[in-house]
């Protein structure tokens, strides 16, 4: 099953490699991993999307907790949560397609953040599912480049991961 795990860790050099090293050493899946400092500059927040049986997820949770620099871990998928991902897509946008592409972007509530005479760069946010739907909705042959951040997650309401 797919799980989305959030963790807070010391914002120190090498901390990320301890997490990614743990996943590769123990053969756990990483679908995506995002990391950036939080409002407290000493802490980084990481969101890992992974999958595995309940036993494997339990081990991932425990092994992450065991890392000395990991401050707190939460399996967001155990409760109500939100997840968002950002995608940038550069598409060929010429002639009639130009108007069509603008319309599709509006329908998906994206925005065009760069325009050239032949291309648009579209920014979209949403769940991974929504981003994929967009890619399916447009003519694939027009896609020049896609960049995705991987999911970031947060608990709903009172579910808070904090020091």
């Amino acid at each position, binding site marked *: 099953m797919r799980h989305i795990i959030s963790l807070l860790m010391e914002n120190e050099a090498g901390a990320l490699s301890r997490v990614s090293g743990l996943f590769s050493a123990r053969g756990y899946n990483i679908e995506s991993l995002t990391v950036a400092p939080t409002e407290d500059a000493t802490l980084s927040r990481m969101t890992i999307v992974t999958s595995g049986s309940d*036993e494997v997820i339990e081990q991932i949770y425990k*092994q992450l907790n065991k890392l000395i620099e990991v401050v707190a871990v939460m399996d967001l998928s155990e409760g109500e949560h939100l997840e968002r991902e950002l995608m940038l897509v550069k598409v060929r946008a010429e002639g009639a397609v130009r108007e069509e592409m603008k319309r599709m972007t509006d329908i998906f509530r994206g925005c065009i953040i760069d325009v050239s005479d032949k291309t648009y760069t579209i920014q979209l946010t949403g769940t991974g599912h929504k981003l994929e739907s967009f890619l399916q909705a447009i003519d694939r042959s027009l896609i020049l480049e896609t960049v995705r951040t991987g999911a970031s997650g947060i608990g709903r309401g009172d579910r808070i991961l904090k020091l």
Partner: protein
Amino acid sequence: MELTGAEITIRCLQEEGAEYVFGYPGGAVLHIYDALFTQNQVKHILVRHEQAAVHAADGYARSTDKVGVALVTSGPGVTNAVTGIATAYMDSIPMVIISGQVPTYAIGEDAFQEVDTVGITRPCVKHNFLVKDVKEIASTIKKAFYLAKSGRPGPVLVDIPKDISNQKTEFSYPSSVSIRSYHPAQHSDLEQVKCAVQLLLAAKRPMIYAGGGVILADASKQLTELVRLLGFPCTNTLMGLGGYPATDKQFVGMLGMHGTYEANMGMQYCDVLLAVGARFDDRVVGNVKHFNQEKRKIIHIDIDPSSISKRVKVDLPIVGDVAHVLDDLLAELHGTKEKPDQQAIAPWWAQIKEWRGKNSLVYKNSDEIIKPQFVIEKLYEVTQGDAFITSDVGQHQMWAAQYYKFDKPRRWINSGGLGTMGFGLPAAMGVQLAHPDSHVACVTGEGSIQMCIQELSTCKQFQLPLKIIMLNNRYLGMVRQWQQFFHGNRYAESYMDALPDFVKLAEAYGHVGMRIEKPSDVEPALKEAFGRKQQLVFMDFITDQTENVFPMVQGGKGLSEVILAEDL
């Protein structure tokens, strides 16, 4: 007064009460060696290879309750040390390794003797640090010792670039340490302890299975009291030997791949299993699916939550320091009205007695040729069961574990998890330094000993009167045994050709060498060797080439699918 980073490093070791540092100098640690030179409190033991420095620190730590310390230089110093670090990591041994690094301004430039030490060691340390500011040396070393010893112990590495060890700052050693992201479990959940007592008292076919965690937590006193109070059978893992006295009638021997028949059958068919500081690894429970075919309730005490339900799902986990949890269990047992019902478990003991009747450790002795098991039995007799025994890895290790009856903890020193050949001799050096007046023997084979044989030179320099008990069968015995059983007798590269004359070799290093070829000479030779209190004696026992280790549970098989010597 301002001190250099190197001086601070040594002062930190003094503050931590480190008696010995095992190491090898080199460019990146020259400042630290210079600081060592000007003091007498911390004694340096110069090994002949960095792997041995770490094994020696490891043996020192295992045979005491202290943190072992090793000091190595950058680059090859570190890569040589990695086997030792991984060995300690797998067996959760508290250790601090200080490594030199190229100067901070050269890091990343592929400088001479540069490796990414933190990167290379990351998967085999509890934690590691690269110190980039001289002001952080003291607090980092304080943290390193704290991390190494607390919680589930393990090796911690501190990498110090050469320029940092030469810069100056004020020295003050922190009196305490707190790491906001690290809170090892201490006390158990008392509700869980109550539930455990109820389960134990209701058991009809109980079994207590205790591992290295008992030794590391210094909890063998509590374990022994608990086992006797309950009247249950107790088995130890390879790492747990000595945690419960082996000569006690409730001890059913070691379990696992080469465990006794009664221990393995007891594990398989018990109805309540109390696991204490053990981790259900593949060499202990074999095939998990087969193990799970029998229904039993499992209580698991361990300090590391990730050890719980990793391979075998448990019913009642108790996370905490093994000694504290056992104290709580004992208090609860003493406080409760119900008492262990010996009548209820009498049929189970009758069953165990029947299994014991198989006499699974029996071997056919000979007047002609030395049987390796016989050497261990005589070693046990001659040392009156009171020696520190280190071992290497292979058949000799299993025979030592099976036939030397350890009644005390921290007497049996071996590489259980990683299975590192070459461990025994350097580990024995650390043990002998920690216990200068005790008998220390290294049980080894002619394969393993050659992996760190250069340490005979260290033993000479520091006058370590070890007794090396080499079971020489001219084969990599355990490899040969597997080839015989599972690879159609094709002995690929398991034959040790062109062996040196070990007697002359020992003599060349300035020690006493003995070759023993007749069974009748075994005991007198051992007596003579252990009588030479000031000398290292290298004993080359020419043993039966064809002897195998029994009982044996093959990899992938279940505990009750055991092969006994009589089956072949």
